[in-house]
């Protein structure tokens, strides 16, 4: 690593202008932080919802299908603003980091402190590895098409193996009440949730039965295909609803 390669790109501003420009950076970053914590967290809570809230919803069919599909949305839209206008390849990582901040705050204060659920029952999933790869592919390819295809696919395909080291141990079987359950199922039975009975779980339902017990890769590839379509859709949504006219006027 040479000193030259670490150089920060040339700056058009110096002195007071540079200081003001930096203050503007921080202002936007702080606002973006709160905006994405709130908006993206709300979006995920409303769309992924129970699949991310509870251990006993994180199944091998629907969880890896729904979660990447709903979580690639904001990253695509924010990348559509930060990359073409500023060449900043951090939209996905920024969004997923903000989501995790909001999620951890909620899980700790609302679920654990307020509603008494043990935190291990409400551990969130992470998509940070997927987001890092998505940002890197966009930076290296500088192409919406390539990022849609390879970035979108990587975003979905990395999801389940990323989270299996966190949640795999909750799939250890136990004998309880004369039946075989996973530790995750047992959370659902023991730690009562009045409004969410076990039968409401949308898990292990569908027509993947003819593929033996290999439902997860099929779900992941289905999600990958859908993410390649979802990514450009939200890219254009981000482009349509964002403006840089205030920067132009400076």
């Amino acid at each position: 690593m040479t000193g030259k390669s670490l150089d920060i790109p040339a700056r058009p501003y110096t002195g007071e202008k540079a200081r003001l420009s930096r203050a503007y950076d921080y202002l936007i970053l702080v606002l973006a932080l709160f905006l994405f914590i709130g908006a993206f967290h709300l979006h995920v809570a409303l769309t992924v919802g129970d699949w991310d809230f509870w251990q006993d919803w994180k199944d091998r069919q629907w969880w890896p299908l729904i979660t990447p599909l709903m979580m690639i949305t904001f990253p695509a839209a924010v990348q559509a603003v930060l990359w073409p206008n500023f060449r900043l390849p951090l939209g996905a990582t920024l969004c997923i980091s903000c989501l995790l901040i909001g999620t951890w705050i909620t899980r700790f204060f609302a679920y654990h402190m307020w509603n008494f659920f043990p935190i291990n029952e409400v551990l969130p999933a992470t998509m940070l590895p997927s987001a890092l790869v998505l940002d890197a592919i966009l930076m290296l390819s500088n192409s919406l098409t390539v990022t849609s295809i390879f970035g979108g696919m990587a975003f979905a395909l990395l999801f389940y193996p990323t989270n299996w080291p966190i949640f795999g141990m909750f799939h250890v079987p136990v004998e309880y009440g004369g039946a075989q359950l996973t530790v995750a199922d047992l959370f659902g039975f023991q730690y009562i949730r009045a409004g969410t009975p076990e039968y409401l779980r949308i898990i292990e339902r569908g027509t993947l039965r003819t593929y033996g017990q290999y439902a997860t890769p099929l779900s992941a590839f289905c999600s990958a295909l859908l993410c390649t379509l979802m990514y450009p859709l939200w890219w254009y949504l981000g482009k349509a609803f964002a403006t840089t006219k205030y920067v132009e006027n400076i």
Partner: protein
Amino acid sequence: MKMSLKTLFSAACLGLCAGALAPEAALAHGEKALEPFVRMRTIQWYDVAWSKAKLNVNEEVVITGKFHVNADWPRGVAQPDATYLNVSAPGPVFIRTERYLNGQSSVSSSALKLGGDYEFKIVMKARIPGRFHLHPFVNLHDAGSVVGPGQWMEVEGDASAFTNQIKTLDGSLIDMETYGLANGVAWHGFWIALGSAWLLWWVRRPLFIPRYKMLHAGQDASLISPLDRKIGAAIIFAVPMIVLGANFVTDLRYPNAIPLQAAMDQIDPLPPAVDVGAVQVKIQRAEYNVPARAMIMTALLHNGSDHPVRVGEFSTANVRFLNPSVIQPPQGEGAALAAREGLSIDAADPIAPGETRTIRITAEDSLWQRERLDGLIRDADTRMGGLLFLYDNAGRRYVSSVSAPVIPKFY
């Protein structure tokens, strides 16, 4: 005028703040929210009891009781093909350690049969100290929750003393309160550190205005350095490697991991307990007198038993209308939902063995209004339902599930 508006606005703000700072505890579980005809004609609870009302953390309370699944099930409510016997509480202040339906251990959902009789037993272990209201209730898929009678529980002790250890099928003893937490936090911490490093790598340099100006001046090539590209390439290579490697190690560590379980329990009803025996009841007409808050039922009773019987109680949606000359009023919390003298019969003499008689049963009390059951007359399905309890001199009980269309009387 201006001054008074300002004062009014300030007072409103102060009131709002005071209200927000001193919230009142929510003590209900929506037990009155469900439309009356659903509460009256689906799950009919009776004989619900708690083994104790005061306990310490780690001690258990046993909730027992019975319910009859009304055969006159409302057409507007989905059939009980998927139901879940649950307990309402403000979060998992208790954990459910055992649940039995008709003597059979049950951990999953099950179907209920119309007209079936069920006995349940739920064992709850105290986890958090405090005063909590517990109800058994049945979640009905696509319909809602039919709540049974409630009981206040006083839990004392220290929450940190709570233990919940489980033995897995691979022989490990795990603590459900902390299992997997350190591992999960460590993985989240690792990825957050990597993500933060990537963000800081970019945020440390001037961002929006200079980069925008340079990009539009055609200098975008200098905005992404060769080192940035190398790091990007490293991410594309290393991150999937770490992910797949960790995934592989997890598979090795937990070779017996299984998918989440989605089976339903198969529970058969008990031998019938309601509408059996020698006493038969048919409601011929039911009128609800709005000003008197009274349900007046004209019933045809046939006593086929060897003993004279008398009507002792009419129970619907957890409200008990009692005939004081037949049964003693309940003590404790159950008294709140019992109309001690709420049931009267037009003829006080018992129905003799072999006799068939038409009688007028009046269930009258303000509980119709307080429990929001009087709204039945404005429901889309205005049939009432409930359980009628008859007793003979030896104390034997005959239970009949009754239902009939209700005609309101407004004056």
